């Protein structure tokens, strides 16, 4: 008499849980579904309380991903991942030879997993979640920020980088001037902004950061300064600070 694995089915879609249970009912001698969970937090609670032998774990859930769920578990059951689309996760699974099921789940594929479970008594070695996530991060193109969130009162406005011409510090505040001539106020400091912004934003003076992609003209000014004419509606003219002279010269290849 082989072992019967106590299982929990975790998926954010009720229909997906139902169908998984109904597919598993064909293997009642190997797997018995004792509980189900509709989101990450619920899953953690139930796993810790019921200590199942096996979980069917959906990767993409609204509150936590399947990986985050595993990271927070103290009880480590066998895991069969289920996913509809996560191509990067799939690559990672294959790298670590981790068992996973593609949704919609095929009966034959499920049979294979159950067979493996039956013959080995377990699915795989303990899963190295951080290694897994590292691989997924490598595959996944990092989501680059393309806009600067500006908080004005209760609202957040997204200013797209390409729409910003330059920023000017005044007292504790920074004014952001867009290409179409609108002015926005933010209470971030210029230094803080400068750290957050991508390469194309460039400090030319104590109180100015300009968007390099929005320079229309650049002139040599007297006294080791440069005059930047910006490519905005009004053709704003900004002069660089004297102390920035050498840096500007080398950065712009002058």
């Amino acid at each position, binding site marked *: 008499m082989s072992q019967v694995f106590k299982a929990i089915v975790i998926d954010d879609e009720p229909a997906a849980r139902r169908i998984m249970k109904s597919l598993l009912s064909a293997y009642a001698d190997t797997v018995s579904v004792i509980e189900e969970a509709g989101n990450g937090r619920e899953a953690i609670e139930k796993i810790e309380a019921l200590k199942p032998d096996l979980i069917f774990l959906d990767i993409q859930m609204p509150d936590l991903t399947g990986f985050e769920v595993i990271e927070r578990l103290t009880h480590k059951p066998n895991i069969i991942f289920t996913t509809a689309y996560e191509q990067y996760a799939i690559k990672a699974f294959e790298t670590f030879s981790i068992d996973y099921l593609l949704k919609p789940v095929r009966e034959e594929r499920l049979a294979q997993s159950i067979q493996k479970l039956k013959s080995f008594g377990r699915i795989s070695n303990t899963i190295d979640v951080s290694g897994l996530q590292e691989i997924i991060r490598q595959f996944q193109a990092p989501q680059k920020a393309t806009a600067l969130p500006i908080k004005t009162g209760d609202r*957040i406005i997204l200013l797209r980088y390409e729409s910003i011409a330059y920023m000017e510090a005044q007292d504790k505040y920074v004014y952001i001037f867009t290409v179409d001539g609108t002015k926005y106020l933010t209470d971030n400091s210029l230094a803080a902004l400068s750290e957050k912004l991508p390469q194309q934003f460039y400090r030319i003076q104590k109180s100015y950061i300009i968007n390099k992609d929005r320079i229309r003209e650049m002139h040599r000014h007297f006294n080791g300064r440069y005059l930047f004419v910006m490519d905005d509606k009004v053709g704003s003219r900004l002069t660089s600070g004297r102390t920035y002279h050498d840096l500007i010269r080398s950065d712009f290849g002058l």
Partner: protein
Amino acid sequence: MKEPTTLEYIILIFSCLLFALAGLYILTNFTRLFKQSVRNELLRKNIVAWLAIFCISTAMLPMSGGFFYMLAKWGWWWSVIGQFISTTATTLVVYNTVRFIAENSRFKKLPFIQHNALIVFSLIVTTVAINIPFGYILYGSQTSYLKYIIINSIYLAGATGLIYAVISYLDIERKRKFDAKELELSRMSELKAKAELDALHSKVNPHFLYNALNSIADLSMTDGKKARKMTIALADLFRYSINYSQNNYSTINDEMAMTEVYMQIEKIRFEDQLTYSVYVEPATAHYLIPRFILQPLAENAVKHGLKATGKLTEIFMEVRRKDNGVIINIADNGPPFPDELVPGYGVKSVFDKLDLLFPGQYEIHFSNVPRKQVSIQINKLLKNEPGL
């Protein structure tokens, strides 16, 4: 009359050349001179024309013997004054007549050759008309001189007129070429915008497609009716997203209808976890907005709303008139937007579409109070007309 010395000839030729150069400079910069200082266009043009005529007629003085005759008869003082007077008269009569004919829209409608022939003709007539009384004052009734003045005027005015005609012909040619190029460029940028939009349209979130297909596969075994409903909804949504008619715009009504189809699919997927409501102010329903901008935002709202687990996710979408445009609000009851908001694919595509179709006329903002919502304000009402 005393014969001038060689030095005097050189000085004369030199000063004439200087005047000619000054005249040419004034002509080439005709439209730019005094633009800052003299606001009245007619006055400014007359001043510039006076200067040009003065310089050029002074440069050409040695060609007609009149000036030297006058010099011998009345002396320097009166000769210069005479030159001023004749320049002023020429400017007032000749320049303004020709300008009227050249710029008046009625004459402009004439074919190029007729129009320019008329300009040359009027130039000759007015020049002769001006010069006859001056000649009379100067030479009295000596007919041989008068004949000389008339022939000289016809010759000068005719030459000037022909030069003008050639220049304007070249100008028109250049403009035509430039316009052709411009047209080509604008057509290209339109094509580019179209291509960009097409690329944006075709990207319906693949996650969503897979998830929906998965749900259908599941439902087909448990609830055939729901599976059928979802298949039909998915077909509608994808037909809309494929955009056979290649429209960049959609009416607010259509956009909202498609977003509702999307919401229905999500509602089937998440059953009792999700509810939504929609309001479209009737006065806005038939205005145009970029196609497929509501669905990505609704998708975001669903995703964010579901994050707050353990409670019913409520989505609220509305479109209202605001200022001189419309405002679209999409609200959910998930956790508030963080201050450090990073736009995802959906928001970026919405930005891109608005940038292409309503450049500088829209604003997107995110707010957490009084309710958590994303708002798009479009400050332009675009009527639904064929060809958009």
